[in-house]
């Protein structure tokens, strides 16, 4: 690019992320927006974004607030006033929350690993059109999307296999998502056959091809599906309700959130009606909000990395098997 303004004005470098550098322009045939229309649009979209962000903001601020600040606000705090980390220190000092966090992490990590291994293998196994028997297996998968035994028969099967109170009962029954397998499969079958044929000519077997050719070329969809599975495990609480006796050492975090924050019941194993009630230093409310934040943190850490790939992961015409 030649500089047409040799005196004084420096052209903005193309790499700058300054506002306006990446600004798309309106198509020439489009009429400019009216003031009213523009204002309405801005207001609507701000409101939409606000309904998500404002509650989260209030919850985070409240979890860091001193009892004094909460009292002054008459409840939840909108603006940071007196800040303290005490609620978090106290929460992580609680054996109940600590173990719940570990249980949740264990369920999520182990469950996601199991789900991903099983799904990726199955998706690749079905992705080579014309392979022997893949149509039959595909039907076996798709039928489950429309026909299911339902809650009670599933419960009977799991308990019949001795799953009551067992860790695997929280993972295996919901470990295979046919929808996710179909999404993965539709990506894997797009992997160029030249690449695969070349690898095969070099003497690679199917395991090797999956590991060294297919997986590296479909990182985005793998990331998205991993997130889907992980979020599912992190958020699961109904399986706990079904298969876990009411022992707090096997509760995941969501369950603590439900009993303690939502229902306001004190944590078990605590005298004087649950933690936070008798602590003058920490308002029970900020302790509750700290639990909420704790369930949010892992999600918010992973989310930005995966979020940009959503469209690829969701829209693959997975149904068109």
């Amino acid at each position, binding site marked *: 690019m030649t500089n047409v303004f040799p005196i004084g004005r420096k052209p903005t470098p193309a790499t700058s992320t300054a506002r306006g550098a990446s600004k798309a322009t309106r198509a020439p045939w489009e009429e400019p927006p009216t003031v009213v229309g523009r204002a309405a*649009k801005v207001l609507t979209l701000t409101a939409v974004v606000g309904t998500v962000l404002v509650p989260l903001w*209030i919850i985070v601020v409240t979890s860091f607030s001193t009892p004094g600040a909460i009292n002054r606000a008459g409840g*939840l705090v909108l603006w940071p006033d007196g800040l303290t980390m005490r609620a978090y220190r106290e929460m992580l000092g609680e054996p109940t929350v600590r173990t719940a966090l570990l249980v949740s992490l264990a369920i999520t990590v182990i469950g996601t690993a199991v789900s991903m291994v099983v799904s990726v293998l199955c998706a690749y196994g079905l992705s*080579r059109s014309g392979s022997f*028997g893949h149509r039959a297996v595909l039907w076996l998968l798709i039928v489950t999307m429309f026909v299911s035994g339902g809650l009670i028969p599933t419960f009977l099967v799991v308990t019949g296999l001795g799953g009551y109170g067992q860790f695997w009962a929280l993972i295996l*029954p919901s470990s295979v998502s046919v929808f996710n397998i179909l999404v993965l499969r539709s990506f894997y079958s797009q992997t160029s056959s030249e690449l695969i044929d070349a690898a095969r000519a070099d003497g690679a077997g*199917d395991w090797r091809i999956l590991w060294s050719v297919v997986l590296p070329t479909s990182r985005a969809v793998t990331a998205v599906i991993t997130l889907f599975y992980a979020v599912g495990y992190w958020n699961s609480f109904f399986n706990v309700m079904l298969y876990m006796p009411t022992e707090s050492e096997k509760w995941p975090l969501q369950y603590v959130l*439900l009993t303690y924050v939502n229902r306001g019941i004190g944590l078990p194993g605590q005298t004087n009606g649950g933690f936070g009630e008798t602590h003058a230093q920490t308002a029970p409310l900020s302790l509750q909000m700290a639990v909420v934040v704790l369930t*949010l943190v892992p999600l918010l850490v992973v989310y930005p990395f995966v979020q940009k790939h959503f469209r690829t992961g969701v829209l693959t015409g997975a149904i068109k098997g």
Partner: protein
Amino acid sequence: MDDRERPGEVRDRPVTTTDAPHSARPQAPHSPPARAAQPKRLTWRMRLRRDRTLLIMTVPAVVLLLVFNYAPLVGLVTAFQYYDPLTGIWNSEWAGLGQFQQLFQDAQFWGSLQNTLYLSFVQLILFFPVPIALALLLNTVISERIRNVIQSVVYLPHFFSWVLAITIFQQMLGGAGVLNQFLRSHDIGAWNIMTDPDTFALLVTSQAVWKEAGWGIIVFLAALSAINTELYEAAAADGAGRWRRTWHITLPGLRGVIMLMLVLRLGNALTVGFEQFLIQRDAVGHETADVLDTFSFYYGIATGNYGYGAAAGLFKSVISLLLIWGANRLAHAFGEDGLYRK
């Protein structure tokens, strides 16, 4: 390259795009040979040998599905039994349609069915159009960066658990929530939405909108980006204004997706959500909050009356299948794809 297939030889197999199952081109099972030099059709034994690794890879998933999805189908017979966990599924006393007779005389069952249909209807009216409207609105935002920011924010609640979502609602709108703080400080009487049975349908629908409407945008945005911009240009050149263009180009471009979503929504008319209602059942009372799924759970598992709960579940599944089929037929009658192309 010679075209002989040597069974059992995995390495240095001839690489052809016609006999290998690794071509990305979809092949009809009995398609005529694509090339003249096509070898004879492989026997199934050869194909099995060639593809055994691929089949082995599907085994773990298939086993899990057989155990946790197909085995429960056998468990459906409990709907026709007076099932007793102690005697087991093979020896329980047969009820015939007794469970169903009892079910259809149960006022609570009809109540939960009524709640389900009512909530489903409210969701169809108040929830279904929201993602479409949002997608249209977002599509008019020119700045890519602003669009991306808005998208990432509205997708977020989809990943919250229902426990978390309801907790957030509780903190904002509940008895001690932000809204009531505001009302009290302005000397207006407090109003606890979270426990008010009269507004329950509105509450759960707004929760569903808050949590899922953003995520629902994705599908419509994709359909919007597939619309050919030349159409807009041509229309603008012909003097069609912004609204005319929306009406004559954008909406027809979305029609297929909207129909598909509508088919799915109608097919799931009896599924309005489960955890959401389970969590809030105690706060508003079961007369208001019981839907078919929670009914099945409460009367099946919580009270140990398995056969009864299974019967309620089976009733729901059968009706749902009929609904999906019916909605799909309807879509085809309107000349749309529905779930699949005709």
